[in-house]
């Protein structure tokens, strides 16, 4: 899933400073799972913003809405009836949601309330880790199910580098060396001979380097 983190409160408050009537839009998708932009977070943030306004002796009207998903025009449409009554939207969905709202409601500014950080999953309660770089050309079958592009800080395909120490990455001791993980796994799977194979240079044109991408399903299109 997409993992995001709420922006520092000071930054958020600065974005909405000039406005008295805003819609605070949450999302029940990924950001709800990582507790950055779901319904609970909408309620908390709305209360925090109102509290802050109180300290300034100002008022703010916040319409609290949580859409099923903000990455779907069908749900984004649900704001149609009242969007024009407000001066701005603060979306705490991922970058996709913010953009979908902005595309649909061109007349009012839409602000990002979270920093969308990565594609990943829950490592344990309250901790999410990056797992996928969306490179568009998955090689997990070659590396025992561990991604060299994401888990190796240098995205090496023929790793590890010389900076691996005690199974930790030279960038930060809290980061496990991606290639150590891969080698351990290849050993467990009895696939060590894969290690000697030289993986050729990656086709980065399939990843974001090749420009913004699209996926089309002819069989599902109207």
């Amino acid at each position, binding site marked *: 899933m997409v993992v995001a983190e709420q922006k520092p409160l000071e930054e958020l408050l600065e974005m909405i400073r000039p406005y008295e009537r805003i819609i605070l839009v949450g999302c029940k998708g990924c950001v709800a799972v990582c507790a950055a932009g779901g319904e609970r977070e909408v309620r908390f943030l709305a209360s925090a913003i109102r509290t802050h306004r109180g300290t300034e002796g100002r008022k703010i009207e916040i319409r609290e809405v949580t859409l099923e998903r903000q990455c779907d025009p069908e749900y984004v449409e649900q704001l149609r009836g009242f969007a024009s009554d407000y001066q701005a939207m603060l979306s705490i969905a991922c970058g996709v949601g913010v953009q979908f709202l902005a595309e649909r409601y061109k007349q009012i500014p839409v602000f990002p309330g979270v920093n969308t950080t990565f594609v990943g999953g829950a490592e344990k309660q309250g901790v999410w880790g990056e797992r996928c770089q969306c490179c568009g050309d998955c090689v997990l079958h070659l590396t025992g199910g561990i991604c060299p592009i994401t888990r190796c*800080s*240098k*995205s*090496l*395909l*023929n*790793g*590890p*580098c*010389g*900076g*691996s*120490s*005690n*199974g930790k990455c*030279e*960038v*930060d001791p809290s980061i496990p*060396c991606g290639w*150590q993980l891969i*080698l351990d796994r290849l050993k467990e799977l009895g696939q060590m001979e894969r*290690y*000697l194979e*030289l*993986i*050729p*240079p*990656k086709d*980065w044109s399939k990843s974001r380097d090749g420009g913004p991408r699209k996926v089309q399903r002819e069989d599902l299109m109207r």
Partner: protein
Amino acid sequence: MNDYKSQSRLERVLKAGYFAVTGECGPPRGADPEAIRKKGELLIGCVDAVNVTDCQTAVVRMSSLASCLILKEMGFDPILQMVTRDRNRIAIQSDVLGAAALGINNILCLTGDHQKAGDHPQAKNVFDLDSIQMVQAIKRMRDEGRFINGEELTVRPRLFIGAAENPFADPFEIRHLRLAKKVAAGADFIQTQCIFNVKRFREWMKRVVDLGLHEKVYILAGITPLKSVGMARYMKTQVPGMDVPDELIERLKGVPKEKQGEEGIKIAIEIIQEIREIEGVHGVHIMAIEWEEKVKEIVEGAGLLPRPQI
């Protein structure tokens, strides 16, 4: 019939069977050619070839290629170091052609330290290729006259291709396998990370020899003289992939501060003499970081002067 791969003096020294000596220069943090010339002056007559680092530890320094040229003008056979951190395959192939055109004969292919450790941690990194893919690419350019995409180039870059390997990095069990990969990719020579734990290096060399790699690639053992206990401790704890045995630190501690540098040089010479006896070692690569003036003393003390005239 000349079956050398390049015009490299290092290649000729190694092929003739001499125990080779290479040195290293770190370029300055400014547009100052004199800084490189001064370091070069300290190495004249002591080395067969000299490396120039490429923004080592991800810190901005004068480019390796420019520095190599300055050293070439002084009569050295420079080894251009190139990291994959800062350049994509287009720039790498371009710089390889440029280096060869300017008469640089040796290139050392490295992945590069991550920029987080350097002075511009906010920079975007590249890592389009890894060091092994770079070795393979340059070999293809040299021996087949083709770029990575398969298209023909006009004049082939005749470079002696090197790579680095760290016998002390984790995981230890695959380090010789990684070397095998680099050899398969086309590496002509290898320089290792600096050695302080000779026993462990010996173990690694045994595995390397068992795989027959010493007959396919020239291996130069890395040597760095320790200036002080502080430096030894720093390298032991702060530099990843470095193995500094406690005995060495104790040995330096047992000597008054002013004499520690001298002791460090003695240790370096001893290590050189020990590793010379190990099967498969074809030379040494001396990295006297910010202490280039001691290289002559070390090379001389190890009985490696004068360098062969080739």
